[in-house]
């Protein structure tokens, strides 16, 4: 009893206060009526809203925005997006393009850039036959295991060997390229923002001469897509640099497209199988999902459609 009555007493005590206030308000009628008139209520609400929104906007302006330390030129031009066919969910690589791209890599890129994570064997059954790859691997020399005298000799390459790098080590690569290290291209598509688009734009985006006002350091080249715009690599792809064996015209953009697709393969050699598995999995799971919906409805049908009725006892039976 006491527990229940106590809150009620307190509530009554609080309730009394507003009543006293309201009587006082009614005695000083004019001001209070004006304050609670719709116009002033709207004005007050509007001002409060404006103040809140304004301070929030000011706070965001001051502290909320991302701070960019670099100028747009230092960020590099955003890569244009191209509709790469091999990036659609149901398309494999174009293996003829991979073969052309590998030719471009071998004849142009490989003089400076390594591809150290790709072994010769991974080309077999993807863009070359076994015999072609064996011949290609044998053109390179590799160290043997130490022989009886502990000397390391040279042997021709095998399919299990990895593609040799153009320089012995990074220092040699830097020394030969004016201090700039040509990055390894095995994972370059995964390793750069923009991926295929970025590499394609970089390869095809060299202007004939740097725009007015751009400062290009000694031994550097201007490329708007490269962060900082000064890149040690010069333009390498010119029309007809490579002669394709399948007769495709070797324009700059064709070669860039082929080599980008090839580098995408080097970074994601599993892509064809992965997409195929994905399509199969989606097809199967769609079927299973439909079945599970049907089973649920089948099981729930009697529960959902039944009617629960409470029929009260009519009266004492006896």
């Amino acid at each position: 009893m006491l527990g229940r009555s106590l809150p009620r007493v307190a509530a009554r005590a609080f309730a009394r206060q507003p009543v006293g206030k309201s009587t006082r308000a009614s005695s000083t009628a004019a001001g209070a009526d004006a304050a609670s008139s719709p116009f002033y209520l709207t004005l007050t609400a509007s001002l409060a809203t404006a103040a809140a929104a304004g301070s929030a906007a000011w706070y965001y302006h001051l502290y909320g925005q991302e701070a960019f330390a670099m100028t747009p030129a230092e960020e590099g031009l955003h890569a244009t997006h191209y509709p790469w066919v091999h990036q659609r969910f149901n398309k494999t690589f174009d293996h003829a393009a991979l073969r052309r791209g590998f030719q471009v890599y071998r004849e142009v890129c490989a003089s400076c850039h390594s591809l150290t994570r790709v072994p010769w064997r991974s080309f077999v059954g993807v863009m070359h036959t076994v015999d072609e790859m064996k011949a290609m691997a044998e053109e390179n020399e590799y160290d043997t295991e130490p022989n009886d005298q502990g000397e390391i000799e040279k042997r021709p390459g095998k399919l299990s060997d990895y593609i040799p790098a153009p320089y012995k080590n990074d220092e040699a690569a830097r020394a030969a390229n004016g201090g700039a290290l040509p990055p390894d291209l095995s994972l370059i598509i995964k390793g750069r923002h923009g991926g295929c688009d970025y590499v394609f734009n970089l390869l095809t985006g060299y202007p004939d001469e740097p725009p007015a006002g751009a400062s290009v350091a000694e031994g550097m080249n201007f490329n708007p897509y490269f962060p900082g715009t000064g890149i040690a690599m010069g333009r390498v792809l010119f029309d007809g640099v490579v002669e394709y064996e399948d007769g495709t015209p070797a324009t700059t953009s064709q070669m860039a497209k082929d080599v980008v697709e090839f580098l995408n393969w080097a970074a994601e050699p599993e892509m064809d199988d992965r997409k195929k598995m994905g399509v199969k999995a989606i097809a199967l799971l769609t079927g299973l999902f439909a079945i599970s919906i049907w089973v649920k409805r089948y099981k729930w049908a009697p529960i959902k459609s039944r009617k629960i009725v409470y029929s009260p006892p009519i009266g004492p039976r006896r």
Partner: protein
Amino acid sequence: MAGISNAIYQSIIRRNAVFLTTIFAGAFAFELSFDTASNKIWDTWNAGRQWKDIKPRYLVKEDEDDE
């Protein structure tokens, strides 16, 4: 309907050995048919893009070299 389900029950489900064999055989049959069908669809989508499509070009050339 009752006739069909009764027939299924009598022929397949009634004996456990038959039921189990049916499940295993059905799994194999489904796997085979699903893989064949989806591979065929995949190859239609990617006609001319895969290695098996361009392989003949390079095999023929090798044969000529050998001769």
